[in-house]
């Protein structure tokens, strides 16, 4: 809670700055505020911004770097035989030190050096807190004092404040760009490290996926193989099944809702679809594993088929249910956007409603519908929890939907949960899979947008 109290200090000082600045501006003109360039509040804001913003920046830098700075200081204070440990063991030692410092009991070695280091750690934490408190206080007070001195009737406080706000808003809007850049860089960077160890051709064209790396050199089955073909087929199969469920149901319900349904039906059906859309995927995953998979296995057993309890069919079916509202709401929008005059014209020459829909409305809405289906596919490919909970872990190269298959997302999750040896191909492979996933969904989204834009009919 230390950081929160620092934040509170800054906020309190800024508020104080606001009132001081406002009072000062009124005092400067002896209460005749018509002589001021801006309203007194703007002078207050001016002081508050000068007081708060620099301090907030410093505080953010401190919060982001605090842990690593203190840790590296503690490590440099450790006896040399600890410092020379390899990375992973060192991080274990650091963890122990932190736990001791927090007062939790650490099992295993109770080295005296660790206790000393923990004390050092706690001392550093306190020193760091006091130091940053002093720095922030001085920045705030300096900003407050300096900006207060600037207040004069001719100072254009409103312009300055508004310019600052604009700059802040521009900065906020760049967060989206930084996020994309962050995603691309983080995934790409680790992927390149992965491809340094595993050739990219093996990754793209290999037919086998078993990311077990040897711990000892002489282990049996040591060499892991990283071919994404089974993952790709598994992903496509599950997404395909999902789309087979979602497209007909989603599209037909969208058509019915916009063309046939009475208001009463619509007021019931629309919320139902919205509820389906709002259910978290982990719930769908549990539903697939608890109800759908055993149900399918029983049916399969009744028909003499051997259905795996983690069959692609179960995961695909449930994923399809998840995507229904997605398809239906997007299609609903584009179908509603088709002008009524087209329908009237078609009905006027004697077509039935279904003929109007199939021959006039759907062709007019087709680009939007195709776009929504593509977005649905991209959703299905990137969907994680349903397949993690209901699909298999082993990579089978099979076309039988009753078998267990695995997907990109399942493998990313299984590779990254648990052990954290960050340099092994195993963990890096997860990032390479993430890159493939990102590229696939990105391409689908771009194609979807392009289809919608390029082939959209303009009715004006």
């Amino acid at each position: 809670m230390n950081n929160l109290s620092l934040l509170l200090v800054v906020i309190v000082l800024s508020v104080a700055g606001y009132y001081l600045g406002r009072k000062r501006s009124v005092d400067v003109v002896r209460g005749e505020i018509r002589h001021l360039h801006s309203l007194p509040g703007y002078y207050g804001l001016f002081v508050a911004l000068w007081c708060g913003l620099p301090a907030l920046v410093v505080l953010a830098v401190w919060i982001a770097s605090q842990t690593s700075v203190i840790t590296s200081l503690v490590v440099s204070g450790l006896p040399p035989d600890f410092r020379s440990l390899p990375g992973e063991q060192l991080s274990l030692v650091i963890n122990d030190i932190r736990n001791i410092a927090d007062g939790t009991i650490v099992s295993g070695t109770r080295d005296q050096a660790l206790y000393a280091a923990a004390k050092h750690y706690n001392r550093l934490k306190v020193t760091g807190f006091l130091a940053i408190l002093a720095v922030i206080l001085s920045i705030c007070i300096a900003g407050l004092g300096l900006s207060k001195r600037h207040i004069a009737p001719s100072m254009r406080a409103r312009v300055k404040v508004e310019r600052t706000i604009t700059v802040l808003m521009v900065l906020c809007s760049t967060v989206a760009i930084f996020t994309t850049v962050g995603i691309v860089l983080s995934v790409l960077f680790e992927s390149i490290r992965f491809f340094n160890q595993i050739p990219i051709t093996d990754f793209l064209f290999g037919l086998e996926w078993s990311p077990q790396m040897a711990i000892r050199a002489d282990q049996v089955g040591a060499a892991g193989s990283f071919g994404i073909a089974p993952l790709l087929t598994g992903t496509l199969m599950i997404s395909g099944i999902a789309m087979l469920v979602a497209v007909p149901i989603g599209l037909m319900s969208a058509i019915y809702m916009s063309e046939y349904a009475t208001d009463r039906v619509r007021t019931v059906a629309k919320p139902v679809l919205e509820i389906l859309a709002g259910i978290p995927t982990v719930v769908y995953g549990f539903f697939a594993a608890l109800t759908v998979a055993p149900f399918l296995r029983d049916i399969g057993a009744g028909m003499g088929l051997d259905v795996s309890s983690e069959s692609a069919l179960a995961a695909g079916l449930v994923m399809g249910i998840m995507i229904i509202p997605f398809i239906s709401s997007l299609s609903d929008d584009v179908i509603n956007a088709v002008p009524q005059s087209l329908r009237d014209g078609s009905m006027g020459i004697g077509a039935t409603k279904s003929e109007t829909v199939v021959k006039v409305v759907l062709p007019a809405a087709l680009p939007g519908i195709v776009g929504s289906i593509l977005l649905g596919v991209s959703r299905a490919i990137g969907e994680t929890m349903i397949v993690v909970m209901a699909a298999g872990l082993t990579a089978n190269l099979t076309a039988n939907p009753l078998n267990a298959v695995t997907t990109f997302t399942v493998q990313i999750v299984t590779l990254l949960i648990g052990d954290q040896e960050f340099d092994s191909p195993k963990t890096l492979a997860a990032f390479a899979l993430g890159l493939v996933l990102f590229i696939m969904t990105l391409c689908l989204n771009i194609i979807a947008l392009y289809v919608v834009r390029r082939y959209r009919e303009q009715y004006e």
Partner: protein
Amino acid sequence: MNRAELNSHEDRLQLIKSKLKWRYAKENIFRVSGIIAILLAVSMLAILFISIIGSGYTAFQQTFIRLDIKFDQDVIDPDNKKEPEALSQADYSALVKTALSKMFPDVSDRRERRDLYSIVSSGAAFELRDMIMGNPALIGTTQQVWFPADDDVDMYIKGHIQVEAEGSGRIKESTVQWINALTESKSLKKRFNTTLFTGGDSREPEIAGIWGAVVGSFYTMIVTLALSFPLGVATAVYLEEFAPKNIWTDIVEVNINNLAAVPSIVFGLLGLAVFLNFFGLPRSAPIVGGLVLTLMTLPTIIIASRASLLAVPPSIREGALGVGASRMQSVLHHVLPLALPGMLTGTIIGMARALGETAPLLMIGMVAFIVDIPTGVFDKATVLPVQIYLWADSPERAFVERTSATIMVLLAFLLIMNALAVILRKKFERRW
């Protein structure tokens, strides 16, 4: 059908009539298939709810067993030190065992005895410890205490598991006899399962609760809200009201639309690589979860906020500008307050999605087994959907119903949030 045949009016009418039946049939088929599609969607939702509620409602009750515990001075505090240190180290499970043996004196076989001791939750000892730590005066007295029964006993009482052929099932014939004896003496009954709502996670289903996950979710959502709402609103206001039309703003817009469609797990990879490995923020902490979910919900909030800004008519801005407001004043004083309800609605919907999100949080380690209730955003924590995932993975039968119960709690939260959004929209919606 050639042209000559169509020449006469009669023939044409005939042809149309003969086709009409088929066309009407097709019309009906089309309409019915639409109805079927909607019914399918509705029934799938119904099946989902029925199967979740059906397997989860029993979790709100838990079997308790009453034991007469004699707080024996010799066991708890033989040296009469009365220090908390000594009291907390005492062997409280011995008290439970003694009480059970007294109840069933004829159990002598060692293996049977072990079975007998295991009908009460292994959390019973901790409960007794807490009682003594809270009130040391209890030492030497005999108290009636209700303990949660072991999860297998609980499952048997609820009818989820049966006695199977000798020794193979989770519950044995002898245990059933004890259960029956306890029921007869009114020492066993089902009560409301408060532990489920107040406890932290545990390996023992009967003392596992979701409070830790609820608190973790709360902290994560606070971080998400505190970051994503101001960021999203500022971005939307800038793009909609101030931004010039140029390449830069185009790039920003394309980015936002694209981020809205990036799979959530990729945000988890980003969080792992950037927040954990680069910035060295703590694993499993709500602060990191909140940061990742912020990036994920930002596009939703921005898009909704822009839509609601767009809905404010230009006349409002022009009116403000006309009486001498600056552009910033016209936006901050007039446009923003009018657009705020729509922005809040979008934010609530975005937060509801963030509350149900699991995959990115798995990547940043919020999947760890955490017993303690988190006390801040830097503590290790888990969240409700991850708790569901963890319990769904546990082999114990008792966790199935607890998972379903947790899902009901999560869905209730989501329902409340969405209802709030709807009410907000209804209340403040304005048409110009």
